[in-house]
């Protein structure tokens, strides 16, 4: 069988410092329907190699729905046809996609439903000024002994992928991202 060689891909370039009026959208981190009793909050901070918060990172999250479906649904950026403004998800379909910028303290938060099925993690894509090519990681909501990725990491590194339940906070998980340094987050490549 003769296969056509794959087309060469378009290179990545940094998201730069000025995406803030273009990519973030109102309610970008509100994936769970408002008031849903199963809603969890996942939040944390992004740090650079000097331990300083990164105030201009953009995080995207993609995950299975509560029923385990990976089909997703349109409507993350649902628009008002009258004004063009983003009016938020419709509260019925679970889109599985979130986009949240960090604030001046490098903090972000999203509200979602726990992923069902065999992928108990949120896939995370990190963009920032200074980052030439986005970084992928995962926020696991439970430590799954059968997970091939987690099983292949030494314990200290594995811990960087675990979103830990925060004592005293209702259904709230902490997931910090360290771009560089001693506690550097495990980033992924798909081979």
């Amino acid at each position, binding site marked *: 069988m003769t296969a056509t060689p*794959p*087309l*060469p*891909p*378009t*290179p*990545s*370039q*940094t*998201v730069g*410092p*000025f995406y803030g*009026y*273009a*990519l973030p959208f109102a309610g970008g981190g509100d994936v769970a329907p408002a008031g849903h009793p199963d809603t969890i909050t996942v939040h944390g901070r992004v740090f*650079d*190699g000097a331990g*300083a918060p990164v105030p201009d990172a953009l995080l995207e999250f*993609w*995950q*299975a729905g509560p029923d385990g479906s*990976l*089909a*997703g649904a*349109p*409507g*993350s*950026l*649902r*628009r008002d*046809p009258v004004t*063009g403004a983003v009016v938020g998800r*419709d509260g019925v379909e679970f*889109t*599985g*996609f979130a986009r949240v910028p960090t604030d001046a303290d490098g903090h972000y938060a999203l509200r979602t439903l726990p*992923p069902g099925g*065999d*992928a108990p993690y949120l*896939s995370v*894509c990190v*963009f*920032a*000024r*200074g*980052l*030439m*090519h*986005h970084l*992928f990681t995962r926020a696991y909501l439970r430590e799954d002994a059968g997970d091939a*990725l987690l099983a292949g990491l030494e314990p200290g*590194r594995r811990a960087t992928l675990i979103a830990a339940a925060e004592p005293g906070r209702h259904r709230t998980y902490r997931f910090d991202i360290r*771009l*560089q340094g001693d506690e550097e987050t*495990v*980033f*992924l*490549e*798909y*081979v």
Partner: protein
Amino acid sequence: MTTSRPAPVPAAAQPPAAVPAQAAPPLLQSDIDREVAERQAAYEKARAAGAPVAHHPPRDYLPYRSSALRHPRQPPAAVSGDPDTAELHGPVFGATDVTELDADLTRQHQGEPLGERITVTGRVLDRDGRPVRGQLVEVWQANASGRYAHQRDQHPAPLDPNFTGVGRCLTDDDGTYTFTTVKPGAYPWRNHLNAWRPAHIHFSFFGTAFTQRLVTQMYFPGDPLFRYDPILSSVTDTSARERLVAAYDHGLSSPEWSLGYRWDVVLDGPSATWIEEGR
């Protein structure tokens, strides 16, 4: 790199007296040029020795100073897929996510923006040449004067009350996107003294899998600033770098209306057919 500073800067190029006498001399274009040339030569040497083509920029590319503390030092962990790998699927978008006006950046305000009206169009493909259909494409850019509608851009060029510089659309069944906008201006930044970015439009693409996600920048042909720009130069492979430059296409120009540019895009990364193809 701070190990090999150039000769002291002539007095005329020194910053004003408010800067302490011990301050490091300003980083000059010649410093950046040398670093860029070193990285380029190292890549070409590696290629000659059999290294694979680097389609993407390295994350630790110091000529772009902001990368210094923002790239991981550990190698990435390899994920080999099974059909339940979440990243082999990805977010989807639809008719509710865009409005018709979103693809025309010249019609978002009361009046017409200043600048050279252009149309930018192209196809979004995967590496097997299949069109990416019905997916979200987002753009943002500076105005014709080189100023972003962002409060952190305070350089002395005028804002345009009739231009924000944000657009989005969905690709059609052929994978084609089209935007009407104005050609952005070059603008200064503070990577080094007298640093200027070549004119560019920022693009964001989604594929059929989250692994294919791409954020990049499209440049305009023949820009004299290319060789001075460490961000474009971070793509050390010459033919890969050329893929970031749109082609002027006279057939896309519209009489007495706009100039046309074509820029096709190929998304990298495994797609949902990854496993069946045994990649």
